[in-house]
């Protein structure tokens, strides 16, 4: 830690000022519209928003999918991250590269791939029918399942990246130490790995949850107007109805959701057992 704070501020402030001035100010003005009605400060935008049953449905659906995607990616992410950290150097690099690869593909194209995969004649339905799980192809497209899968595929890499780096920063012999002290693998996970990687979990969880809330392409294409999420609803409000007040309300809700999720995760992570 250095003592010269002036230098510290000189280094930290440009980034903060940049974001504040060019980002937070315009966004803030827009968001403040949600608190205005007929030139007055008011919460009526919010009241109206939540009085619409559709909006409530979409709100809960968004929350549900966000939590589900974040939770699933955490579970899968731990498995994958653990497996990756246990690979030897070279192989680890290769597998890590494969995990990162999907990030390089345009989400537009990735989402369309799901249309092919999940269609009536797609491989998933081929498998379902082939295995005799169902007589006829199952409708998967334009369902919450499709949106869930699309989002999971989109954001799982971010979770894995966070967890892998957290695991790599774990003290070297912590797991062997727990083993020698009699812990089985489940206990090793709950008592050592989980508490030692919670920073990574918080970061991954925030990225995935926030990402799922604010993703546009995936719910738009895989869900369509039958499976609206807040972000697609927002787009509709702006683009179809030219209704900026609802749009700001939705945006504000999304921001509050992301922010509280982040706080909640941090709280859970730092809670003493």
């Amino acid at each position, binding site marked *: *830690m*250095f003592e*010269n*704070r002036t*230098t*510290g501020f000189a280094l*930290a*402030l*440009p*980034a*903060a000022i940049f*974001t504040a001035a060019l*980002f937070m*100010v*315009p*966004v803030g*003005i*827009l*968001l403040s519209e949600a608190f205005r009605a007929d030139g007055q400060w008011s919460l009526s935008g919010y009241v109206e928003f939540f009085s619409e049953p559709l909006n409530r449905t979409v709100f809960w659906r968004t929350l549900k999918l966000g939590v589900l995607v974040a939770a699933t990616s955490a579970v*899968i992410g731990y*498995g994958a991250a*653990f*497996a*990756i950290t246990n690979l030897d150097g070279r192989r680890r*690099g290769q597998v890590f590269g*494969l*995990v990162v*690869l*999907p990030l*390089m*593909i*345009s*989400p*537009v*194209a*990735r989402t*369309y*791939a*799901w249309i*092919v*995969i999940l269609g009536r004649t797609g491989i998933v339905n081929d498998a379902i029918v082939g295995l005799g799980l169902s007589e006829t192809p199952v409708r998967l497209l334009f369902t919450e399942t499709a949106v869930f899968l699309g989002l999971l*595929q989109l954001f*799982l890499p971010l979770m*894995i990246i966070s967890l892998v780096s957290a695991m790599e920063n774990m003290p070297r012999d912590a*797991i062997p130490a727990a*083993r020698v002290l009699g812990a089985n*693998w489940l206990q090793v996970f709950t008592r050592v790995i989980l508490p030692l990687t919670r920073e990574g979990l918080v970061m991954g969880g*925030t990225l995935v949850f*926030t990402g799922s809330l*604010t993703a546009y*392409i995936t719910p738009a294409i895989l869900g369509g107007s039958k499976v609206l999420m807040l*972000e697609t609803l*927002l787009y509709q409000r702006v683009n179809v109805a030219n209704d*900026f007040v609802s*749009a*700001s309300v939705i*945006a504000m809700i*999304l*921001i509050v959701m992301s*922010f509280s999720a982040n706080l909640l995760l941090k709280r859970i992570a730092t809670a003493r057992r």
Partner: protein
Amino acid sequence: MTGMPTLASRVVLALVLTFLIGPFVIIILAGLSAGNSLAFPPDGLSLKWYLKVFTVESFQASFALSMFLAVFGTLAALALGVPAAYALNRYDLPGAETVRIIVAAPIIVPGIIVGLALLRYLVVPTGVGVTLALFLAHTALVLPYAVRVVSSSLHNLRADMEEAAVLLGCTRLQAFFKVVLPNIRAGVLAAFILGFVTSFNQVPVSLFLSGPGVRTLPIDMLAYMEITYDPSVAALSALLAFLSVAIVFAAEKFLGFSRYV
């Protein structure tokens, strides 16, 4: 480690990779289709869609724009973010948490709102060009990643190395460039890659931030698909993915990324 659930973890890994990479394989193959629609398995093989990509004029302009935004937006974010990350890690600053929150804000704001806000309260009133607005927006979007990733590698870098450098005669600035930067190269590179792909694939922000003749590639692809639903978009995506991989690979070779990871 003995008794590590090797088999189980291998299986998990295989499934995860299939899930993550599967769609990519489908995109590559669908682009090779001889038919007129996205299909898997493709109806016959041909390179016609891959070739067609190069004949669509709008793709060229939007590709150039997206490339510009991704490269320079990310570099700008790093130029702002690396010093900030350094200050947040090495100085005991009052208000550090506030700075962290401000810088992280762009991640949690829905992209559509960002685009709309910048259009209505930056582009329109100040008359700055859409390209500049896009550049600023992309810089702000990438900044949180830059700060976070670089922070975490700084966090793992012992501060006493800098002290050693100073005792050997470096100024703080020299110590940063000679000792800190080389050791956080991997983090900086990772931030660059993450920023690059975030910016390059960014859709919602750019939905509104487009102007006559100014449109990012993903928006252009969406528009293209609204009209023509042929496999050339799959082909284009596959080509872009290969390009990204090549850029990462080159950057890795160039910066010696893996040596320090």
